């Protein structure tokens, strides 16, 4: 089990479009700092963008906790998106590509899962949602190249 350092956790609010830009920025910074390469950074930031937007749009706002992980020599990041909105009644359905209760492409959840190593949804109808993703650094750490 990875041992996250709670002291290193950053919590950020998700309440507006501007917050989304800020979350992306912070996630990219954190990933770059841990040595994630440009492609991995881009994937993680994109997954974060999808999930943060779901928190905002479907969950009515909430927050994200960004935690650097260390498991022996392995380095990773965990992002936990929490809201107290209507919750996700049918997780399998929500995960299905193309399913959207709004008029989106319905690729957010399914796409995010393909962009990271693990994605878990903890939610029941009416009880809010916690969507957690973990991405591990693959290969040798690269120099900081993050932008945007």
């Amino acid at each position, binding site marked *: 089990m990875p041992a996250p350092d709670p002291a290193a956790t950053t919590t950020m609010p998700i309440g507006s*479009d*501007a917050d*989304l*830009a*800020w979350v*992306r*920025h912070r996630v*990219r910074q954190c990933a770059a700092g841990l040595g994630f390469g*440009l*492609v991995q*950074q*881009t*994937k993680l*930031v*994109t997954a974060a*963008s*999808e999930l943060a*937007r779901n928190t905002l749009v479907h969950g009515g706002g909430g927050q994200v906790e960004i935690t650097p992980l260390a498991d022996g020599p392995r380095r990773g990041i965990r992002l936990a998106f929490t809201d107290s909105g209507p919750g996700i009644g049918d997780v399998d359905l929500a995960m299905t*590509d193309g399913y959207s209760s709004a008029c*989106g*492409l319905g*690729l*957010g959840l*399914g*796409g995010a899962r*393909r*962009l990271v190593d693990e994605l878990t949804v903890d939610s029941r109808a009416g009880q809010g949602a916690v969507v957690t993703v973990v991405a591990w650094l693959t290969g040798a750490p690269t120099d900081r*190249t993050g*932008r*945007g």
Partner: protein
Amino acid sequence: MQVPEQAAQGPAARELGDFLERRREQIAQRWADVPLFRTVFTVSRDEAVEACKVVVDALREVASSGRLDDVAAPGFDPAREQLGRMAASRARGGVSPAQVANEAAGLRAAAAELLRGEDLPAHEAREALLALTVLMGTLRVVIMETTVLAGDELIARQRQQLLEVATPVISLWEGVVAVPLIGTLDSARSQVVMESLLQAVVERRARHAILDITGVPTVDSLVAHHLMQTVAAVRLMGAECIVSGIRPAIAQTIVHLGIDLSAVLTRGSLADALEYALARQGTEVSRRAAGATPR
């Protein structure tokens, strides 16, 4: 920003550097009348002209170093302090950073006009014009950065937002308009982009519209959705829309997300997109030799 076409920009960047050196005086004279300079250097026009020359020289330096799209290029350094002072002065006058950015966009038009008047072979003229577009886009971001730094009450969060302001539609060539997008394409902004692009297509009778996303750091499903909607709307106006500047990391991410962009016409770089558009329009490149005035 890391872009694959950097190598290909080499000769065009040098051409542009030569042009900026050759026309230093004329460019400075024209820029001195643009609000950005005119309203700041009010004591004498000569002062404004001198200030313009500092910026032209910086641009020439950046062009010669080939780092056209690098906001951090050392060539900008000699001009940064002055740009900061100008920005601060505009801010004191109640002008918003977004307005300053628009004024900065106006500098391009003046320089482009002079560039079109140069007696260059058509192909070189086209490449140099593209290089100028990229370089002036970068200058715009540099100015915005100094503008934001100038207002110290603005915290980092606002700075991030400000970098995401709308981008003007540029007439690249006869019948070809382009929007070099910089920053995030959220719903509000993509609405603005779509409206101004459609308006430009009508007003400038464009048959091709290029959306260049080299400066967009993240393409998630919403951004992709917006891009597809814009492409569809442009198509309805009877023009063809090309998306350029999808970087390798973003291409991989789009594929994993599961977004199908196969219905969207894409090209690697802005230059490739323009080339495609011109080929489609049957423009004989050699026909527009010296003296032609493309818009």
